[in-house]
């Protein structure tokens, strides 16, 4: 099984190829702007490296968020186009899962963070198990204060991974039993690994159901005055 993974939900962008269990090519870059300019050249680079043609791909794994809205869409549109053109299966993966997947495991509970901007972060909790991590509850969107309260309330020792550097300086200050660690961003190679498990379990979605995981409604500010509410018609 030949798999392609695309990851653009944070300031980092990455692409990776796997043939069965083997990672055969990858490319990545950290630059919040420029997901669109990165992706196709990265695909070209990786496919040349692996000696593949686009239509060799059986599965396109895509990180659908949460994260930067525009990054999520640039990645998903790219993945949809490639999967559609070559008849590959589209498999969605969570950014928070992809970060947790690469956390250095030990006995600590893993808190995986992805910055979603506007003063909020997505957080997922995971228990380390031999060979990986197991999700403990669903992904939540919270403010730094709410995150701190959640960590304080949880008695277990914590390893915080992901974009904790995007938190305010004092967000984790004075919390005992808390360590911070890597990775900072999700990566396509982790997306590949998670997608492989999804394919092996046969949990393949319909392509219409592979959608962005924004976790927040759009801002609906129109940049002009609502004349009607001022007008004589009310």
């Amino acid at each position: 099984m030949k798999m392609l993974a695309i990851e653009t939900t944070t300031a980092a962008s990455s692409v990776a190829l796997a043939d069965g269990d083997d990672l055969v090519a990858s490319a990545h870059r950290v630059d919040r702007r420029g997901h669109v300019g990165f992706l196709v050249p990265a695909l070209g680079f990786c496919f040349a490296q692996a000696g593949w043609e686009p239509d060799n791909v059986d599965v396109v794994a895509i990180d659908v968020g949460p994260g930067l809205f525009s990054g999520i869409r640039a990645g998903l549109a790219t993945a949809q186009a490639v999967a559609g053109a070559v008849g590959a299966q589209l498999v969605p993966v969570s950014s928070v899962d992809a970060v947790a997947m690469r956390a250095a495991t030990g006995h600590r509970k893993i808190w995986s963070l992805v910055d979603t901007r506007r003063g909020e972060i997505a957080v997922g909790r995971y228990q380390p198990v031999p060979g990986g991590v197991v999700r403990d509850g669903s992904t939540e969107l919270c403010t730094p204060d709410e995150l701190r309260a959640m960590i304080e309330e949880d008695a277990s020792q914590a390893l915080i991974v992901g974009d904790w550097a995007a938190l305010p300086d004092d967000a984790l200050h004075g919390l005992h039993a808390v360590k911070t660690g890597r990775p900072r961003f999700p990566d396509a190679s982790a997306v590949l690994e998670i997608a492989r498990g999804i394919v092996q379990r046969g949990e393949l979605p319909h392509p219409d159901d592979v959608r962005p995981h924004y976790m927040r409604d759009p801002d609906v500010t129109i940049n002009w005055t609502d004349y009607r509410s001022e007008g004589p018609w009310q």
Partner: protein
Amino acid sequence: MSDSPLVLGFETSCDETAVAVTRGFEVLSNVMASQVDDHARFGGVVPEVAARAHVEAIRSLTHAALREAGVHSMDLAAVAATQGPGLAGALMVGFSYGKALAWALQVPFVGIDHMEGHLFAPRLEHDEYQPPAVVLLASGGHSQIIHMRDWGSYETLGATIDDAAGEAFDKLARFLGLGYPGGPAIDAESDDGDPRVVRFPRALPDRPFDFSFSGLKTAVVTYVRRHHAAGTLPAMPDIAASVQEAIVDVLVTKTLNAAEETGVPTVAAGGGVLANRRLRVRLAEECDARGLRLFLPSPALCTDNGAMIGAAAAFRLGRGESTSAEAEIDSSRRLSES
């Protein structure tokens, strides 16, 4: 151009997700998913709402465009997508999709200027449409007058200094309680109205090719408040028709100023505002009176569509041009003058 290459064109610069298959200037399919209902409750296009709707629609619309044209993606010779100007988040969806599709099919990709797309739209229905021409482009996002010296050689003669014409329709329809989108709402309301009942101001008389609509908006708001309070407000159809006449009059007058100044024999137009019936009639009458040839796309090709992107791409590809894989969107792109 029956031996021209098959192009799949994407247009996602604003609130229409549009995909088309074209061969040269022949339209094989032209499908779109309008987001009007998504934006109606906000009374205007919300950028994040638009971007979300594009990514939901683009995959199935691509299949629909290919199916309707009776072609397989393997038959495509190139893929094109709008690169700008437009809403960044919206542009990014079609541009990413188009670029990746071209890569996967191993065919050239062309990023197209949205305005150049509009300039080519009349060509899809009229073989005789040729430069030199003066072209009025008016929509919710843009209002300008372009002197097309030749295909690919453009000069922007005038533009709006504040709101776009479509935006003026939206804001005024909203103020008048006529609904969204404003252009069709005011057009419909004007049916039984007399455009001579109120003479609203025509802005910028000393700038022959430029538009301004914010003064009109203020004038209408002031007029309505005053006459509503005094109990002397004319019937709504008369107000709507008068507002419409003020916008249409400015668009027509300045377009004809440009035609006279440049001495071109041909006038064309595009953009969603050109669906307005009064504007179409006035342009036809005035061009007729001056012996100018007028090319107006049918309403489906006036609004943003994928076929016009495919048509502009046919021209660019014919010149041996394509766009690099590293290209980004350019949301504030200006029509190139070369």
